[in-house]
């Protein structure tokens, strides 16, 4: 009886693993056949099922790019980048898509580039490990009086690293939640006020990466290159859509 139950569980687990793989392969075959809309649909299905992997976002970006949906492609590439910021292919495709639309590429300062070396999830994991390590070294320092000095200096080092990793967590929190990064989906006129007949301030090409400052009704206030402005919410999609894993 027990053996039967174990076998049943194993088969269920294998099926659960095969399903996203099958859909992923199917999407790949559709892409190779030039059916980019179909491929994009399969990748979207995977994402709706909760499989938010950088590979899925990347391939979705490719499928959207091939259809000429540059805004959607940039959005997918940027979502992939947020999950895997060190992936060279993602960075290259994002750069290429931005060049095609004429949108400005993000040029982060050196501290931001350092913080982008790890994803939000990686920073959280590092912070958690350092938190445990800090507690362990603190315990060792308290319980080993003969080596307390060396152990406590090590504890201080771990504490500094923990603070650094918390800065990394805070950086991604800022980028994803506090003032989230967003993508302008279609070429947009950025207005001085959230009114249809407001004066145009400047224009942004499709795929432009902006910071989303606030939402008011059907409008959202954005900031691009330090310049604030308003555009309809329907034309601006936040990069981080759900809690990142």
């Amino acid at each position: 009886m027990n053996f039967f139950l174990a076998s049943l569980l194993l088969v269920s687990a294998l099926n659960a693993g095969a399903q996203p793989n099958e859909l992923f392969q199917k999407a790949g075959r559709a892409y190779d056949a030039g059916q980019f809309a179909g491929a994009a649909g399969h990748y979207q299905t995977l994402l709706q099922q909760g499989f938010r992997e950088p590979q899925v976002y990347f391939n979705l970006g490719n499928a959207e790019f091939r259809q000429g949906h540059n805004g959607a492609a940039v959005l997918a590439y940027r979502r992939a980048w947020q999950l895997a910021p060190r992936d060279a292919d993602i960075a290259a495709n994002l750069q290429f898509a931005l060049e095609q639309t004429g949108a400005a590429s993000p040029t982060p300062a050196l501290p931001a580039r350092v913080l982008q070396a790890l994803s939000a999830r990686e920073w959280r994991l590092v912070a958690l490990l350092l938190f445990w390590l800090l507690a362990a070294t603190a315990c060792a320092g308290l319980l080993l009086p003969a080596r307390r000095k060396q152990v406590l200096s090590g504890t201080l080092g771990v504490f500094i690293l923990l603070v650094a990793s918390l800065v990394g967590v805070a950086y991604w929190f800022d980028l994803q939640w506090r003032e989230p990064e967003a993508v302008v989906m279609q070429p947009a006129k950025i207005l001085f006020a959230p009114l249809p007949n407001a004066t145009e301030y400047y224009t942004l090409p499709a795929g432009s990466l902006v910071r989303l400052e606030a939402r008011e009704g059907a409008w959202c206030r954005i900031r691009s290159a330090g310049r604030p402005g308003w555009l309809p919410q329907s034309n601006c999609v936040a990069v981080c859509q759900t809690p990142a894993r």
Partner: protein
Amino acid sequence: MLTQANIVLRAGLALLLGTGVARSATPSAEMDIQPRVLQLGEAAQATITVRGVRNPPAPPLGGLADCDVNGPAVNSQINIINGRMDQSVSFTYQLVPRRAGTLKVGPLNYKLGDVLVQLKGLELTVAAPTTAAAAGGQKSTALTDMVNARLDISPTNIFLNQTFELYLSILHREVRLDRGFTLLNWNPTGLHLSNFEELPGQRTLINGQVFEVRQFRCTARALTVGKIRLAPTVRGGLLVQQQRSQHSGPFNDPFFDRFFQDSFFNRSETRPLDFPTQPLEFIVRALPTAGRPKHFNGAVGKFSLEAQVKPLEGVVGDPVTLTATIAGQGNFDSISLPLMSSTDSFKIYEAKLTGKELDVTQSNGKKTFEQVIIPKTLQASRIPALTFSYFDTAKTEYVTLTAGPFELQLRPGAVGSAVITSPTGGAPPPTPTGRDIAYLKPAPARWHTATTTGWTTSSLFWPVQTLPPLAVLVALIIARRRDARAGDIRLARREQAPRSARRSLRTAEVALAGGQRAAFYEALADALRSYFGHRLNLPPGDVTGDVLQQRLVAARVEAALAAQVTALFELCDRERFGTAGAVALELEASRRTVADTTRLLRRFERVRL
């Protein structure tokens, strides 16, 4: 001695003067009159400055019709700038017009030695005195007629992103204004403005009235298309003389009071004065789409392009540098070098901005770019022309500037020198010939979903995270207790008591198992001695039945319990020092004794001694 030094100094100065005059050989003269606009009854100053001639004759300014001429006052000046001497002589005349209207001064022919210099003619505008002034200076005019402001732009035909000049002029007459001004309601939406700078003051004639004009200028840039309306209010300070007090002066003496009521001691006060500007409206037009060049990147203004390549001779594989300078006037922040992509013949690196010389308004100056180009083959002998497009606001059309092409004299490189080596050595990296997105990624090795991987959302996550601080807390308590024990012998011995007793009881059990009667009771006695020695902080030798009895009574221990301890002590002493050594150990009785001792000591663990 002093006389000799004086002679040398004079000779040197004369030599210097002689050299300077000899250098500025061409005689020249220029005339200026200030102010050019004045009221009848006022005087203007005409200054004629002569250069390149020693001891020039006075210019022939006398004999002007409708104008009295006084002077000249002569002033010589020597300037030495960068080792070059400049000597000038100024003749200053006072001109007092005799009638209102436009008076012409010059042109004049002025003979300087053998050279005849012609001085340009200048015009003086003389206003007739106002009716009010003529009637005795009764000022019935409203203050707003005497102070006003206006805004002007130049040029007036504005395009999106064009930089232009915005002037603010403050005109006033018959009143004195403070130096500082503030603009109210100044929200120039759709414009980017630099700071205002003040231009030299001037006068102007409006409706027969002479106004003093203070003019300010700033550089503006149109950020949006459409109508722009500017109508700020200027807040200035009107300087008025303080009212003299009615009472007599501080000295109560006519002479001193008059002295202190003199204008030198009369202070003026500033009263705020708001006056509106004449509204300025203009339209910012969008750049035309017709004729827009392919590589137009938003530059608006007037620019020039210069480019050069160095070196023009070299070896295949060696880099050459293309230096391009874009100079002129316009929106320099939008200017970048046109994109040149790598080809089969050239590897072209990204252009870098290497120089930027712009004025404070950021709209005049130049930007210099450098681009490294590597010819890859011997046939790469011509670098294609560089083009830069901008919208010329004066011509209202797009202009494309071209520099090049640039011819290169290339030689085949020596073995190994014609290839672009990679920093890691080995084979050179393949040169890309096209660009596209990277292909699809393979499926992930393991699929995660938000539910399976959301470890932070697990109900156990946060409770588990309390463990590290709890562990630290426990370690802290342990460390503090240990530290306290290290300084408190009584406490340390108290904690040691059960351990030492257990150790002795185990020894007793071993002796019991071996049938060693003496050793058994010795160990049992030792267990009691060590336990109570530690509990009562006594040296082991001082723990006897009597001592123990006294301490237990003093500690108000239950009498039955104390009696049991004493009995045990006596039993041990009897067995150790009595004649029972030869008698065989009764196993059951001895085990009971061990058990009783253990039980007894456990009870004492709960007793405060």
